[in-house]
């Protein structure tokens, strides 16, 4: 009798934990689906939706230069999904993309040996890994991005860490992204601490900051499809998938962390150090929002 009670209670507790374990991403899933619903509704018919979503865009531009009925996969192109003139220029550039040299340099770095004889192959046996980054390390209790993982590999093998954001680290990131093309992004939220990191990233994204009092959402959620001076703003959906990005402004390949720095400066706030806790939580949030879409990095942007 007593053993029966113990067994049933153990069974109840075990099943409860299994049921609860899957619910750490419940709110995140709601957010993700709500964002997809918002974006698909916004870009379904810009002319008809003008009053609600594009109140300051001239009507003739919406009629002649904007695409209609965007599908989820179209959002991987960012602002080139809806801006038809920019998309023509992008397609032309893509015939001979400027990042080819960065990707081949990244491949060389991947195969170069460290002083102790090992190479990146020992840390990352298969270079097609970007579908699972960033991930939440449950033991360390922090978000691990691809840049952090690359430098961890270097430090573990006795080499000096690379600078984040550009240069060799961006080239290796570009090689990983090139090899991971076509994979479906799948970022997971395994426990309560990960959910906390996701919520911290979400709060950072939607908080107004800087002397211009703009949040990331001002431009990339509410402002997506509109113009900021002469630039067409890209939507949040699908933004993570095309990084690292060859930005024509930089004339170089740069990672997502590098873009955070630039965006912070645009908002009027002094940026933090790359790969700080806030930036990593933000990258975690951004990646989760684009879950389910295919990876197509590296890519060209203005």
């Amino acid at each position, binding site marked *: 009798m007593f053993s029966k009670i113990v067994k049933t209670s153990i069974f109840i507790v075990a099943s409860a934990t299994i049921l609860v374990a899957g619910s750490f991403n419940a709110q995140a899933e709601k957010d993700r689906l709500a964002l997809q619903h918002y974006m698909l509704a916004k870009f379904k018919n810009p002319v008809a939706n003008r009053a609600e979503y594009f109140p300051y865009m001239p009507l003739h531009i919406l009629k002649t230069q904007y695409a209609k009925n965007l599908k989820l996969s179209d959002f991987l192109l960012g602002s080139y999904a809806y801006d038809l003139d920019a998309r023509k220029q992008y397609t032309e550039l893509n*015939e*001979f993309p*400027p990042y*080819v*040299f960065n990707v081949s340099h990244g491949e060389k770095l991947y195969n170069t040996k460290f002083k102790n004889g090992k190479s990146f192959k020992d840390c990352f046996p298969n270079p097609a890994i970007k579908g699972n980054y960033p991930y939440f390390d449950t033991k360390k209790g922090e978000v691990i991005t691809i840049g952090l993982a690359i430098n961890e590999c270097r430090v573990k093998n006795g080499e000096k860490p690379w600078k984040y954001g550009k240069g060799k680290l961006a080239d290796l990131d570009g090689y990983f992204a090139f090899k991971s093309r076509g994979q479906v992004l799948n970022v997971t939220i395994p426990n309560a601490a990960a959910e906390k990191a996701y919520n911290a990233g979400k709060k950072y994204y939607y908080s107004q900051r800087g002397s211009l009092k703009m949040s990331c959402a001002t431009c990339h959620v509410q402002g997506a499809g509109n113009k900021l001076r002469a630039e067409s703003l890209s939507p949040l959906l699908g933004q993570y998938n095309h990084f690292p990005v060859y930005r024509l402004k930089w*004339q170089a390949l740069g990672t997502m962390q590098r873009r955070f720095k630039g965006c912070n400066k645009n908002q009027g706030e002094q940026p933090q150090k790359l790969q700080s806790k806030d930036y990593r939580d933000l990258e975690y949030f951004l990646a989760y929002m684009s879950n389910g879409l295919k990876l197509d990095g590296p890519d060209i942007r203005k």
Partner: protein
Amino acid sequence: MRAIAKLKNGITTVRAMAHHPMLSYLVAKKKHKKAKFITHLTAKYNGQLVYDLYSTQFLSKNPYIQFAFKGGKKGDKIVFYWIDNTGESKTSSAKIR
């Protein structure tokens, strides 16, 4: 030098990109390096000159060129050659598809 050469209706269209930093004098001074830019770039098909470019510091990094000529056969090679102001030169080739 990466190049793509396509034959269509008797005309070969070539698009190519040279891997070169193309530092102008002002940019090089800021970076404490010597100015380095391609001065002469040519492309030859069967020994015949099909593209000839003389440049100074006005072209930007990794210059991209595009040209077309009448003729060409599938499988034949186009030979590119460039030399820059420091004396470095490079020869490479691409097949016509």
